[in-house]
């Protein structure tokens, strides 16, 4: 090796760094943000045999919500559903199983399997409408609908049993210092707290407004708002005794202002995710429950065909669709499980008191998921439109990838914050997430624009590209049933 003589000065200054002050409390791993993804991360790392004995600190900005009383939950009836639910896919379930959380959920029957998806678009006519509802059934359990709070509760239950995990509630991280090289540790400071914490690996799972993300050197965050809100509510629907899939059907309508999803919680109860314009969301918020139900039923049933024939966006949309098509449909064009049926949309008969709320929707992509001693998981790294129900599934996939990489590198004697392992995680996670994010965004652009000349544009597009709606919906099908189930297509 070639050596030069300026070495001495260099490491004299470095020795000072090495004598880090003892007022900081050290943990091997610090996870900021105890949402679903952060909690799954903590559990997964604690259960990883290779990481056994490593100390983990979970910093959650919110209070300790000691309200997940599963037994109480089981004995009360449907009116206790929360309005935030997730459609979780197969690989998410495997992850939750591996940390012992899924068993808690399924033993108590707190999840509901989706056996069939029914998708239709607005506009009726030849190209779609309820008369052309497209259905996908799902023999090997496409997805389960679970309340977010149930997933969180089951994860916290597991976390509380892990000695290696310390949870600090009401601990909002307001300062992160990331090192320039791995010779230093990462430090975080909590708002109103005197202590700062030091760690070999900081994992940011602090949601889409991530503090950790913005601390990463050279970070580029690509984001935009969709100008839409998701209106959520817990609904009672009329149960259809003739429906063999009663209680297990997920409906999704691509309405003019955006997709409208009705996800089954049980025979009579569903969860609503209704994407619509800001103005419409505000209008809906002002309605009383009965008016809201009427507006919703109108939205679910046939809409009058728009006679606006402005087709400006057709070309754009055509390009996007063919891109997405190439990505997802070339591989497998002869799938015949989907059939067109004449079916009726669900009829909403009630809305659970105080279950109505709405959330803004946006897109976000962190170009760097990792840096020196830092990694991002979940919404901190990526935020997508909920139309394909993929947000948290992507986050759980990050958890799987990151724990795999850490496991491998630690078994080979690496420091837990080793940059090479983190870079491997970034590559693997982005390879999985980016196509899904682009696909979902493209579908949103086509179907979900508040521009009312988009639906006719789709009609033209269908003619242009030589597709029937059925085929173009197979994009969604591909997204929902292959990529969406998290298994290799």
């Amino acid at each position, binding site marked *: 090796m070639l050596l030069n003589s300026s*070495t001495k000065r260099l490491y004299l200054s470095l*020795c000072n760094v090495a004598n880090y002050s003892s007022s900081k409390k050290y943990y091997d791993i610090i996870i900021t943000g105890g949402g679903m993804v952060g909690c799954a991360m903590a559990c997964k790392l604690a259960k990883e045999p290779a990481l056994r004995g490593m100390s983990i600190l979970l910093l959650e900005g919110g209070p300790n919500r000691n309200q997940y009383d599963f037994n109480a939950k089981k004995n009360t009836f449907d009116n206790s559903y929360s309005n935030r639910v997730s459609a979780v896919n197969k690989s998410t379930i495997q992850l939750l199983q591996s940390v012992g959380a899924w068993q808690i959920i399924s033993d108590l029957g707190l999840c509901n399997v989706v056996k069939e998806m029914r998708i239709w678009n607005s506009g009726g006519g030849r190209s779609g409408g309820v008369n052309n509802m497209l259905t996908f059934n799902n023999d090997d359990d496409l997805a389960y609908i679970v309340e977010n709070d149930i997933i969180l509760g089951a994860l916290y239950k597991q976390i509380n049993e892990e000695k290696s995990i310390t949870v600090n509630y009401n601990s909002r991280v307001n300062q992160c210092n990331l090192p320039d090289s791995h010779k230093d540790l990462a430090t975080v400071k909590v708002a109103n707290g005197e202590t700062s914490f030091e760690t070999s690996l900081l994992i940011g799972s602090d949601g889409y407004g991530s503090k950790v993300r913005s601390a990463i050197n050279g970070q580029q965050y690509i984001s935009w708002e969709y100008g839409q809100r998701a209106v959520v509510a817990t609904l009672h629907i009329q149960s259809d005794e003739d429906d063999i899939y009663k209680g297990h059907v997920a409906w999704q309508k691509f309405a003019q202002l955006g997709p409208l999803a009705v996800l089954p919680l049980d025979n009579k109860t569903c969860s609503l995710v209704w994407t619509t314009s800001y103005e419409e969301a505000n209008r809906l918020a002002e309605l009383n429950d009965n008016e809201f139900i009427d507006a919703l039923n109108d939205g679910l049933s046939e809409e009058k065909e728009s006679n606006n024939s402005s087709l400006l966006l057709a070309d754009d949309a055509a390009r996007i669709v063919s891109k997405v098509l190439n990505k997802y449909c070339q591989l497998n064009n002869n799938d015949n499980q989907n059939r067109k049926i004449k079916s009726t949309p669900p009829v909403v008969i009630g809305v659970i008191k105080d279950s109505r709320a709405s959330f803004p929707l946006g897109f976000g992509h962190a170009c760097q998921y990792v840096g020196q001693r830092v990694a991002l998981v979940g919404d901190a790294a990526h935020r997508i439109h909920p139309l394909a129900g993929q947000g948290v599934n992507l986050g759980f996939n990050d958890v799987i990838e990151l724990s795999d990489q850490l496991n491998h590198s630690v078994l080979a004697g690496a420091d837990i914050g080793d940059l090479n392992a983190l870079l491997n995680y970034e590559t693997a996670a982005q390879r999985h997430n980016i196509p899904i994010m682009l696909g979902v965004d493209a579908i949103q652009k086509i179907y979900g624009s508040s521009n009312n000349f988009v639906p006719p544009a789709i009609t033209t597009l269908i003619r242009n590209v030589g597709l029937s709606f059925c085929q173009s919906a197979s994009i969604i099908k591909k997204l929902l049933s292959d990529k969406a189930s998290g298994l290799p297509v």
Partner: protein
Amino acid sequence: MKDYWWNSNGPLNALHSFNPLRVSFIINGLTNMKKIKTKNIGTRQSLENIKILDVGCGGGVLTEALARLDSHVTGIDPSKELITIANDHAKFLRNKNIKYLNESIEEHVTSNTESYDAIVTSEVLEHVSNKYGFLTNCVDCLKPGGSLFITTPNRTIFSWLSVKVIGETFDFIPKGTHEWEKFICPHELQSILEINCKCDTISINGLSYNPFTNRWSWTDSTDVSYAIHAVKNT
């Protein structure tokens, strides 16, 4: 220099990214020789209580990895600067058994015959002029039945191209680091080990390195670089 050595983005990143492969090569070798306790297989304690000598440890990239897996590791290197850097960096390890000595293998062997379970010498042999003397001294430090692990580039047109031309042109390797003529072929190394050092060769595996992605991989061909595991006769 210190930054230069330990910066994982620097030119010596090749040594960092080599760790997963060479560490698992050592673990697998020791597992095959039944030196690793069953309860420790597949854990962070896989090298618990195993005494290892890392000859030509440099800044300690490999030495530290071995220490993190709970071995008792001693790193020796003739370069004083590198040993200081290694010592300094080892402060980041908590409660591990790691020791660095600024001495040559000739000096080390005088008071450490037959005292190690394993000797590791990775990316060093290509710098050594007297390979025969170096290897016999290494093996003398080894307990009977102990394992010797070596990684080194082959002396072929491929390694000449990759080390001298590509490596030095694109700055992956500091200029003048290697004298290609000193490189040793696997069969030459094997015959020194078997004939002069009373060792059995357990395995020889080909290695390749892609400097553009900074990734190492195992290959069937030893044309560029290779790893060898030999065991001292009992």
